[in-house]
């Protein structure tokens, strides 16, 4: 392993820029003559828009224009769409209500845009926005997904009676019912997977510019996938032909999924820029982000697990109600279906699984993919069920898991997925050693001496990443293919530019991708630059989410590097008058096999461009290759997290005493970056389990609309994690990578809740397990013990 190659803990190249304030984020960009946009947003969760009067506001200082939903419709700008078609049990397609970028007749959640003010300065825009008069006819609201389909519930979209978007199912119902009928024991749980607000450090932003001469538009935005944004805005919204729209996502400060989607504000910015013929800049503030970024999770689930007399799991069934919010966001339909139910087999050999999912509209912000997207929800269901089943059966949770682990591969689950490789026992065993599981009892006794409760919880999770084989997702309703593209441009001086369709918004691609190139070409990583996020530079790309950039994005680069190597060998062959087949390439040196004749990387790259030695006219000059890589399977990162908590029963305060994560991510490019991803993921998962929870009151007002009430995890809430890996290389991609971006967020909520419930001695601890909740639980637990 070289100091900068695959497997080296290279420091992140991009961090110098980020930590010295020299990054280039969307809101850092100023275009000449730009106007600022400020949205007038609904204060009501559900209301008809009876009248909008902009006349007084339009006369205010600095106002350039004020546009409404009627103007948008007048210009025939299309609405936003959900790009993944899901079919209900009865074969009918999902019922997608219209989603205009500015509401025209009716608002469906607090924060729904009703007008946009364009003014010379942000303050002027904001002042004028307050002067826009909107007459609302307030309607009753529904926020609880479990109540959305009830008789008499307020109706959001005419196309979706009873607010039901789809009732979908997966698995074999009859086989599952038979398994339950024959079960020796059935474990039942009611679970609420709490709604989360993504809270990327950088709020969303968009700048749109219209080039009148070329009738072309440019959009700078905070996107995780600029090409998909361009495709949707052009093909579905109908803003401009694809070749007349350039989308640039410069430095982006975190996304966690929330910046995958196409949002109303960027559509409006483009449209408005063309109307007023001036650049239009919109930057969300934090309060706006709370209301308008797509939220995550929000499931209400009943789940059951059947076991036989030998403690083998024989069946699993779930019924989930998924809150989609007020409109269907870009990939919202796929999250509670194909990204959720397909993972319900966990790490276990379960012969029969049946899942039913009802997706419903409510008067809340749209819900879509958020770090893990469906897989954290699935893992929480499976890992809570398994832990509780072990407790009910009086078995050690590790033993019960071991009995039921999948041990031979490939393994076909009853819910679509084919697991390709893994060693689940290896990760669990290592994690148990690292946390000193066998002495947990001693530590618990010690805590009890001090009046504290102590608990330990497992989460042996699995996820499907490397999203995704295009043909497979196409057959499941996806509107796009999920391959990735790469282009390698080698300059005459030997430096390398990688153009990738993956998008880095904190993941460290500028480092890890360069490591791959350094490893393959034997060049220093400083001579490699990673170009991404601009549709004019990168031909096409599907972006970054679903832990796909390593497994899919780097595989595309690897494929293009194969071609570069082939061509460079040909160039070297001409230089040394040898056949390309006789050239060996290693550590940046081309050698004629069996001789000491060699030429260096820089000589070859220069010769590729001067082309003086290319006799016979067979070889094209230049050294540039591209590749598209389409995965043949999902990848299946898996592992074991163990959480150990100490609880003060008097206050309900949880102290996380120990946290061990042993993950199998396949081959690892940069262990330091992987560790960072695991740390961040656990922090988010711990956030979900004990701190974070978006809460709407019955009127549809977001009570947790700021950090005063929405608790983000802080360093002080977290222990020092003990992180390690086991490795079974992924067989389906050339680098053997599985992906690591979401694992922490997927695994950790179940581990923590399993630890808390273990400590308090009963299972009814909802998320977030705040001190108030845990105190109450601890009271109940202690009462039980005393009875």
């Amino acid at each position: 392993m070289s100091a900068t190659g695959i497997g080296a803990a290279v420091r992140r190249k991009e961090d110098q820029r980020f930590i010295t304030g020299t990054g280039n984020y969307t809101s850092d960009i100023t275009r000449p003559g730009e106007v600022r946009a400020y949205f007038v947003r609904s204060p009501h969760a559900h209301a008809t828009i009876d009248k909008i009067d902009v006349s007084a506001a339009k006369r205010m200082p600095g106002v350039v224009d004020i546009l409404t939903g009627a103007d948008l419709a007048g210009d025939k700008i299309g609405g936003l769409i959900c790009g993944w078609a899901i079919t209900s049990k009865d074969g009918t397609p999902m019922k997608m209500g219209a989603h205009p970028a500015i509401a025209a007749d009716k608002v469906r959640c607090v924060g729904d845009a009703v007008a946009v003010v364009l003014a010379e300065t942000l303050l002027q825009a904001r002042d004028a926005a307050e002067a826009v008069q909107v007459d609302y006819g307030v309607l009753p609201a529904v926020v609880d997904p479990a109540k959305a389909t009830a008789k008499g519930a307020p109706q959001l979209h005419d196309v979706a009676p009873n607010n039901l978007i789809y009732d979908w199912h997966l698995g074999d119902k009859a086989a599952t019912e038979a398994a339950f009928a024959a079960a020796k024991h059935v474990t039942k749980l009611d679970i609420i997977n709490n709604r989360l607000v993504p809270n990327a450090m950088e709020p969303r932003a968009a700048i749109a510019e219209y080039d009148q001469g070329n009738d072309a538009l440019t959009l700078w935005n905070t996107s995780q996938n600029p090409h998909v944004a361009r495709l949707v805005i052009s093909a579905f919204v109908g803003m401009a032909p694809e070749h007349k729209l350039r989308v640039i996502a410069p430095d982006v400060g975190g996304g966690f999924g929330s910046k995958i989607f196409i949002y109303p504000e960027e559509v409006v910015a483009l449209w408005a820029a063309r109307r007023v013929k001036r650049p239009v800049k919109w930057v969300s503030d934090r309060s706006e982000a709370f209301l308008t970024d797509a939220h995550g999770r929000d499931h209400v689930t009943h789940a059951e697990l059947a076991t036989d007399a030998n403690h083998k799991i024989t069946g699993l069934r779930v019924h989930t109600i998924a809150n989609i919010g007020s409109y269907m966001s870009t990939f919202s339909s796929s999250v509670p279906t194909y990204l959720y139910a397909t993972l319900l087999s966990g790490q276990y050999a379960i012969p029969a699984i049946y899942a039913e999912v009802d997706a419903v509209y409510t008067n809340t912000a749209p819900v879509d993919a958020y770090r893990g997207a469906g897989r954290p929800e699935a893992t929480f269901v499976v890992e809570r069920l398994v832990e509780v089943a072990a407790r009910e059966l009086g078995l050690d949770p590790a033993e019960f898991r071991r009995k039921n682990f999948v041990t031979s591969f490939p393994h076909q689950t009853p819910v679509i997925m084919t697991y390709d490789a893994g060693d689940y026992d290896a990760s669990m065993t290592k994690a148990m050693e690292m946390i000193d599981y066998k002495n947990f009892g001693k530590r618990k006794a010690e805590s009890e001496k001090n009046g504290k409760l102590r608990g330990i919880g497992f989460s042996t999770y699995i996820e499907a990443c490397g999203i995704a084989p295009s043909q497979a997702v196409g057959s499941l309703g996806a509107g796009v293919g999920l391959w990735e593209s790469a282009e390698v441009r080698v300059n005459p001086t030997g430096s390398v530019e990688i153009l990738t369709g993956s998008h880095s918004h904190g993941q460290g691609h500028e480092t890890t991708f360069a490591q791959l190139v350094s490893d393959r070409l034997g060049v220093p990583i400083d001579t490699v630059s990673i170009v991404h996020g601009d549709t004019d530079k990168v031909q096409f790309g599907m972006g970054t989410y679903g832990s796909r950039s390593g497994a899919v994005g780097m595989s595309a680069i690897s494929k293009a590097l194969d071609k570069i190597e082939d061509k460079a060998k040909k160039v070297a062959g001409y230089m040394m008058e040898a056949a390309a087949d006789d050239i060996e390439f290693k550590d940046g040196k081309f050698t004629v096999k069996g001789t000491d004749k060699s030429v260096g990387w820089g000589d070859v790259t220069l010769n590729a461009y001067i082309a003086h030695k290319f006799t016979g006219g067979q070889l094209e000059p230049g050294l540039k290759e591209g590749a598209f890589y389409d995965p043949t399977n999902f990848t299946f990162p898996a592992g074991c997290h163990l959480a150990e908590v100490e609880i003060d029963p008097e206050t309900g305060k949880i102290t996380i005493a120990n946290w061990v994560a042993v993950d199998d991510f396949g081959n690892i490019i940069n262990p330091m970056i992987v560790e960072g991803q695991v740390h961040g993921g656990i922090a988010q998962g711990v956030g979900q389990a004990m701190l974070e929870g978006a809460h709407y009151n019955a009127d549809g007002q977001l009570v947790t609309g700021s950090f005063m009430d929405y608790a983000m995890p802080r360093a002080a809430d977290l222990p020092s994690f003990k992180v390690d890996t086991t490795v079974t290389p992924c067989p389906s991609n050339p680098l053997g990578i599985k992906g690591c971006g979401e694992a922490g967020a997927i695994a950790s909520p179940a581990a923590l809740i399993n630890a808390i419930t273990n400590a308090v001695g009963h299972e009814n601890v909802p998320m977030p397990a705040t001190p108030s909740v845990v105190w109450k639980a601890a009271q109940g637990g202690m009462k039980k013990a005393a009875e």
Partner: protein
Amino acid sequence: MYAFKYEKPWSLAAAAALLSESGDAKLLAGGQTLLPAMKLRLAGPSTIIDLSKVPGLSGVTREGDNLVIGALTKHVEVMNSAEVQKSIPALAHLVSVLGDPAVRNRGTIGGSLANNDPSADYPAAVLALNGTVHTNKRKIAADDFFKGLFETALAADEIIERVSFPVPEKAGYEKFRNPASRFALVGVFVAKTKDGVRVAVTGAGESGVFRVKEMEAALAKDWSPKAIEGVKVSASGIIADLHGTADYRAHLAGVIARRAVAKAG
């Protein structure tokens, strides 16, 4: 923010004059409460009167049996003051768990008291130590100063100059943080002075900081955590929200009070 007029008077008299001239003027101290409210457009004063150039409002002194802190003294200055650490270490501790470094480097005791947030830390200290708020017009005893949620005895044109605290025999502050805001979910300040024992609870009361007389009586007889074990704080009038039920906060007041006493030694 909305547009506002900015004034920077050089004397207390000038500041007071400006304050009484304009109906909705606001004094600016550390700006840690006022400026966020203005940025969110929850506050829109027509005039801001910046106190930073008014002389004599800042600093800590020991005057006989009293510790005196100027209204404009920053949290960090109280935290690091050798005089505070010597005279009332519980007060130095209180400020060390107030907000974060950025807030402590700007926020002031005067601003905190004038604001009287029901979850703020300082009000508990002032009430438990039986402090006195000195204004440009009068002296206000702690028991008369805190009037309810974000309400104080201050008149519209009244300016806090300094706060004096009788140096106690024993004092302790324990804070249980709200997981989101890190303000007090419940904070309890206990103090034993020559005038008796006082227990003040912040974070829990629907009308702001309050005393628990039963605990005071019990502690006067026996200064120990055990002495107040039997004292129940009633859940009526206690804040109930997403972060804690009234029952929980009332229970927590007892637990935290005992820990404050233990800390006081």
